[in-house]
């Protein structure tokens, strides 16, 4: 990725989609009365929005191209810091939510590190390196937090009165 505008358009989308998805997951867990995980997802959404503002500040004066949703050069099907919908469960615990958040931050870090390693544009390289370092800090923070939330017992998903009892 050698164009500064294109790179920043990716960074904006990465943070925006991450915030929106964390909020959507929080909404979904709220409906299913899991307040601990809701709080965690809301915090992650808030952090994503703070980072979005940071990226937008850095983009002042740069023309960002409009990329259609399918024109982004993401390594996978979605923007790298977007937590996956399918890893959620209505009885998930803070431990699971932190694992999900950690995975998304790690993917963000790897994305920026990859751009920094490959680009020939010095400005893009400097910014991608800085963003990768920031993501690295978030990874370390989440790892430290995770150590305070050990894995739940193996039967965490068991529900004596499941909402999905078959017919």
């Amino acid at each position, binding site marked *: 990725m050698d164009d500064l505008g294109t790179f920043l358009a990716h960074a904006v989308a990465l943070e925006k989609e991450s915030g*929106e998805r964390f909020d*959507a*997951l929080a*909404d*979904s*867990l*709220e*409906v*299913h009365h899991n307040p601990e995980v809701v709080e965690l997802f809301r915090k992650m959404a808030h952090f994503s929005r703070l980072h979005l503002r940071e990226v937008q500040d850095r983009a002042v004066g740069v023309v960002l191209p*409009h990329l*259609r*949703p*399918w024109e*982004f050069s*993401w390594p996978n*099907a*979605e923007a790298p810091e977007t937590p*996956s*919908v*399918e*890893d*959620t*469960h*209505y009885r*998930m615990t803070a431990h699971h939510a932190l694992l999900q958040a950690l995975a998304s931050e790690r993917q963000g870090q790897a994305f920026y590190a990859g751009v920094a390693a490959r680009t020939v544009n010095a400005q893009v390289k400097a910014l991608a390196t800085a963003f990768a370092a920031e993501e690295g800090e978030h990874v370390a923070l989440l790892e430290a937090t995770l150590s305070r939330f050990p894995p739940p017992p193996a039967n965490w998903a068991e529900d004596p009165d499941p909402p*999905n*009892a*078959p*017919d």
Partner: protein
Amino acid sequence: MDGESMTHPNPQDYRSDVKPVWCPGCGHFAVITSVARALAELGLARENVALISGIGCSSRLPAYSTVYGFHGVHGRALPVATGLKMARQDLTVLVAGGDGDGFSIGGNHFLHACRRNVDLTYIVMDNSVYGMTKGQASPTTEADWDGSKLTPGGPGIAPFQPLEIALSAGASFVARAFSGQPAELTRQICEAICHKGFSFIHVLSPCITYRPEQRAYKDKVHQDWSQPASDRTEAFRTLLEDDGFATGILFRGSEPAAKPVERPRVALSDMETQFVV
């Protein structure tokens, strides 16, 4: 599609304040996200779009959107949408539902909507189960699926083939997407809306509650159909090789979309003149 020369609304503008009640992890979440992104990408005004559905978890989409919506009767989304489009050619009409809604109780309407070629975009979220009514077999369920007490040992019937049937019945745009690949799904929805005629998008959308094994879809799907066929026979040949997990736009025809018949308006006074002897 011209993506460069316009300002794009925020996809969130197409989302209502109603929070989805779907199970966390359900594939349908990605579908409403993709619909909103597609509408924003095309810059469609909310008041010029209608989203029609039947009944089922998948049919809840209109509640989660700010465009005009009609949450209809089970299996009857397509007739409602057909009537609306015929009366209001200016509207972009989307139809959403599930495999039960669209292929079981609504199967007859599906055939005739394909053959009428009304300019609609029909999105079916297929999870091969009746999710909303707690996990019964649907027309696309595998013959040996033993997950419901109602069909011990499995339904024992060869599954319905939505793409083959849509092609045979005359649909002029046929595609398949996976909810786990929302960018591709968004692209297909944009293409389907821009296509003039009946557009059918078959979305593999896992029901993680009654078909938890569908979480493995992400390892099974493969984007194979990079270029849509414009020849129906060629599309059929492609389907002969289909394992049910190929994604992309399979077929885009050029048959003209149905238009309402302009009937001469007869006023009462005209009739009176005919009675004059």
